């Protein structure tokens, strides 16, 4: 199981600003190990952000997203104290969900 995400959600300019840092290798599949064997691709393919049961952002990613991915976006309607969940799924089927409170 991958390490938890760091999620910061804060009310800003009438909306909610969300910043997420995920812990993931984001291996491209292009690199070779010291023995010259290709290192298999391992990367987050899908990210979903949920607020009050509504999806406020979704993303499909390729291996060109940098290691330990960063994501920032803004949505309207969120209030202080409400929860936001971020869910990611990688190309090996690993999945992680983390939650943060809007402040």
């Amino acid at each position, binding site marked *: 199981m991958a390490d938890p995400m760091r999620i910061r959600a804060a009310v800003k300019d009438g909306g909610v600003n969300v910043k997420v840092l995920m812990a993931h290798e984001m291996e491209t599949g292009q690199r070779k190990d010291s023995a010259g064997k290709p290192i298999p691709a391992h990367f987050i393919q899908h990210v979903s952000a949920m607020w009050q049961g509504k999806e406020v952002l979704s993303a499909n*990613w390729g291996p060109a997203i940098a290691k330990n991915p960063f994501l920032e976006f803004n949505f309207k309607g969120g209030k202080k104290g409400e929860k936001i969940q971020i869910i990611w799924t990688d190309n090996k089927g690993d999945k992680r969900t983390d939650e943060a409170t809007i402040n």
Partner: protein
Amino acid sequence: MDQTRRDVLRASGGASLFAMLAAAGLLRSGPTLAADWNKKAFESKNIKDALEALGAGSPADSADIVMTAPEIAENGAVVPVAAVSKIPGTESIAFLIAKNPTALAASFNIPSGTEPSVSTRVKLAQTTDVHVLVKANGKYYMTKKEIKVTIGGCGG
């Protein structure tokens, strides 16, 4: 999103995949599923093929897409990129990198109520044009910017 599903459907005929897609349709209000991942687009080697796989054809250049990225990236492994679309009705924002091994880096779906503005960090294999593709009201728009890389982000 629908476009992606159609492409996946066309590309395969698997019954199990079909069931997953049906489930995705039923779960519309919940999180979207990884099954929506457009394999063909993400495996495209160049911008033209990626645009085709996304169903974007040849998008019009637009000055209403603002990309924020450094002129020079010292380390191609971590390059901050951000895009804001001022085009009304923006549904999705995608980043495409011309000279990476595969062109499409990321595609963000923007539901109504979410600002058409995203930031992330990408890897650049070498000095390259980075394109931002915006879908708004079913039409595609694009802008691009060259980022110079002194150390590449791919390869060993």
